[in-house]
């Protein structure tokens, strides 16, 4: 019997009790599959018996498509995209069609996610065309979650109509802020009114809306973040993602910072902004379920949860990464190179991250601990084949002693203090 992963989605699984039930169920499935027939003593320390792809067998049930087009490149952005190169869109579609040939048997997906860049920049017709292409190889389960990222300026009535027609269930809106000064500081091409209008239009059409908010923009004060959070809540979106601005190599922002023309927000203030987001959104009824993600009960992003469950997923487009449970293959990160190579029938792979069973298990620890639910030892063992304590027992004991994590013997969770400095913890979890 194929474990129906879709069962982990839905209303039920989003509540704490639901999650626990799901986890218990998953652990049980694994015990049934690997434990009951021949419970070899010490099997857990023989990971070769239990590659992750054995535990999550079959074809991926999640797919990501990268759309690398934007109207303009925002100063802080280092994503895979081209700005002002709409002339490439036709060839991009052709290249996606080529890449889809890799999929022999059409897949049934539980989640499908169009990210970017700006998928909405394709416009209503472009969106229809892309979904048309995808439908040849990517089928959908009955309750599939289909997300499209959109920029406020693109969310016209026609676009919303096209999205609904294509079966989109969820739109992730790159609003970033509802404060004009912050939007200017972030080099965005929209104003707060565009965000409000877009959200209203999407909610009216019955779509689930995620609103991206950014903190630590140059010059942004704590009060501005507070106002943004209140505005997001008032808009009634079901999901909010709060991202602290990152100064990436090679971006215009980073260059300006080096020259001294832009100054990052002080780290203490950055921390305060992050904590404020947690406090305000939790108080407003959003669950903080991963570092940057907040959702009303039942509205978590199932697609992203698949990443953090380390389930296999497919991915298409430049810079897109796919995963089979052990190996992550990332396509070439340059949009133009990827298109050229795909069309020339050449290998367009950028990076291959091939892990041993133990490395995969350690990676699972990191992405798992970034979730507020933390890691359940039994589930971890069943999924990775490794005893939690064997890998990081003493490390985590140290964290707990320092107030960075809690451990009741069953589940390990980072405390808020731990989460705030979590990047400093991973060096002790990952092996090279």
């Amino acid at each position, binding site marked *: 019997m194929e474990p129906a992963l879709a069962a982990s989605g839905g209303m039920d699984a989003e509540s704490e009790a639901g999650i626990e039930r799901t986890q218990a169920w998953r652990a049980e499935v694994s015990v049934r599959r690997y434990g009951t027939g021949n419970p070899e003593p010490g099997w857990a320390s023989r990971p070769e018996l239990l590659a992750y792809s054995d535990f999550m067998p079959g074809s991926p049930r999640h797919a*990501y498509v990268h759309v690398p087009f934007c109207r303009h490149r925002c100063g802080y952005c280092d994503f895979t995209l081209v700005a002002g190169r709409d002339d490439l869109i036709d060839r991009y579609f052709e290249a996606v069609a080529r890449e889809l040939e890799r999929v022999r048997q059409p897949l049934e997906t539980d989640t499908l996610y169009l990210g970017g860049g700006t998928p909405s920049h394709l416009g209503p017709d472009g969106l229809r065309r892309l979904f048309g292409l995808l439908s040849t190889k990517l089928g959908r389960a009955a309750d599939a979650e289909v997300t499209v990222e959109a920029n406020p300026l693109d969310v016209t009535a026609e676009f919303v109509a096209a999205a609904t027609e294509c079966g989109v269930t969820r739109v992730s809106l790159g609003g970033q802020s509802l404060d004009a000064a912050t939007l200017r500081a972030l080099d965005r091409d929209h104003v707060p009114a565009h965000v409000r209008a877009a959200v209203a239009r999407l909610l009216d059409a019955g779509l689930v809306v995620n609103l991206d908010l950014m903190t630590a923009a140059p010059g942004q004060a704590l009060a501005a973040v507070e106002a943004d959070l209140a505005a997001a809540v008032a808009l009634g979106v079901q999901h909010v993602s709060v991202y602290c601005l990152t100064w990436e190599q090679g971006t215009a922002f980073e260059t300006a910072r080096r020259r001294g023309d832009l100054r990052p927000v002080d*780290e203490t203030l*950055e921390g305060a902004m992050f904590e404020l987001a947690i406090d305000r959104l939790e108080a407003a009824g959003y669950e903080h379920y991963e*570092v940057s993600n907040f959702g009303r009960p039942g509205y978590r992003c199932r697609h992203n949860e698949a990443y953090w469950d380390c389930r296999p997923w497919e991915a298409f487009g430049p810079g897109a990464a796919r995963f089979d449970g052990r190996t*992550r293959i*990332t396509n070439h990160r340059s949009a133009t190179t990827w298109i050229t190579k795909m069309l020339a029938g050449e290998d367009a792979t950028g990076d291959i991250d091939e892990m041993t069973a133990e490395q995969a298990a350690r990676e699972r620890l990191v992405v798992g601990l*970034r979730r507020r639910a933390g890691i359940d030892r039994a589930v971890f063992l069943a999924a990775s084949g490794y005893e939690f304590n064997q890998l990081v027992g003493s490390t985590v004991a140290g964290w707990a002693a320092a107030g960075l994590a809690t451990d009741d013997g069953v589940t390990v969770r980072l405390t808020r203090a731990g989460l705030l*400095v979590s990047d400093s913890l991973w060096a002790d979890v*990952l092996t090279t």
Partner: protein
Amino acid sequence: MPIDCRHIRNFSIIAHIDHGKSTLADRLLEHTGTVEKRQLKEQMLDDMELERQRGITIKARAVRMEYRHEGELYELNLIDTPGHVDFHYEVSRSLACCEGAVLLVDAFQGVEAQTMANAYAAINTDLTIVPVINKIDLTYARVDEVLVEMEQSLGIEPDDVIKASAKAGIGIDTLLAAIVERIPPPQGDPNATLRAMVFDSHYDSYRGAITYIRILDGTVRKGQKIRFLRTGVSHEVIELGQFVPQRRGCEELVAGQVGYLVCNIKDVKQVHIGDTVTIPGDQGAAALPGYKPPQRMVYCGLYPSEGENFEELRDALEKLAINDPSFEYAPESSEALGFGFRCGFLGLLHMEIIQQRLEKESDLDLVQTAPNVTYQILTTAGETLEITNPQDVPESGEIEEFRQPIVRTNFIVPAEYIGPVMQLCTDRRATYLKTEYLSPTRAVLSFDLPLAEVIYDLHDKLKSVTKGYGTMDYEMLGYFPADLVRLDILVGGKKVDALSIICDRRDADRRGRAIVKKLRGEIDRHMFEVALQAAIGTRIIARETISALRKNVTAKCYGGDISRKKKLWAKQKEGKKRMKSIGSVDIPQKAFMAVLDTGTDRQ
């Protein structure tokens, strides 16, 4: 037929650093036909990788050349020497094998500190000096002024000075003729009992020890038995010969000649520089005076950054010491750094070179502690302690007298910089001795200074206050009492032994402040606050705090981000591996050099 002493000339080329010794050696090799022009490389004798990289000579090199002068064939043995002050002892060793020295002076730079130091060494050894002004091809050559400087500082007759350009090949033949005509031939009787001086050695992985010798009396032949006086051990001469510049074997070496011996000696420690070689038995010659062993001026701790590599480090040090007897090491341990070695060097350049070779040749990752000089302590019990590690300083109650090494230092500077150099030295508690003028525009300033002040940063400071024109040279005077203290550094409340220094009590506050401030910049923030303190005994004299890390969390970790983020985290892990943990504080390796920061607010 053995060569007659009268047809041999042995000479060294000496000069201040970079005045063109090795380039002149190239020209001599070329003009005498020793090396064919097409095989000649620039500074051909600087064949160690480090020498080529740095463009300086580190090790003296001997070469035999043949030169026909007025119809007679002469054997010229040239020794190219290093100019850097750290390697001065190589110069003195070379001089002891020669009857003459070619003294080079750069036509633009003029007489500099090592010009004088090396020239005096040659004069003291009773050598004939052939003075040369080099680089006369330079547009800014100031030959006449330099002639005056040479006369004033060294009493050199201007008429004796040969004007040359090693680069352009000007004056080379005149120089070769002067070498033959002015430098006396070696004395010595080829028929007397063998007596030879060991002036260098190196280790060859196929042949074992190669012993460099100058024959003073007698003859040594292939197959003959010889004896080293120091060890008393006899060996058979398997091979002997001269450098041309590579090794070239011959049948015998006679009095006056310079060459090498191969005796199947597997352990270079058996070959002592300055030792005497003679025949076995009681008919042998008496020992030669030998050399003063090189003096180590600075010490530092070297530790493997991974504790388990201690044995590997020991092997690597041993291998290096084989070819460099001037370097010394002894095991020591530190609470902070574990097991390692205290190493002694001729100076900071020497230290840097050894460390570089260690890292390169043995692929070891090292933690180095800040260099310090040797101190002497007279204890209340009447015992004299040699302190090469600040950790070994006893409780203040046990110290009767704390002494530091003082060096006599000469600065040669353009007259307009006399003021700034005076200031520099007074700030460093120097005793002023005198000023002498080499010419109306150049002066020699002499001071007695603590060696510690001289080696840490005086050279750099001198260069900066004199726009690069000042040079300095120093020689050891001895140990003198001073008001010294041990300054300890505490990280997170724990004393880090490897960070302690010895300094003048009056400098302690300033040094302490500078060190903790520097450390603050070197140590990353932790999940908790880290206090950095400087203390004398139990008294805290400076404090800085590294505030706790407030926020460090990746915002986005979706499907495409994970691999990239993991690489970043892995890099952090690599970095962490190279740190030393003191308590729960990770200290990066280069922080152990932070104590060198003397503070710029020196008043």
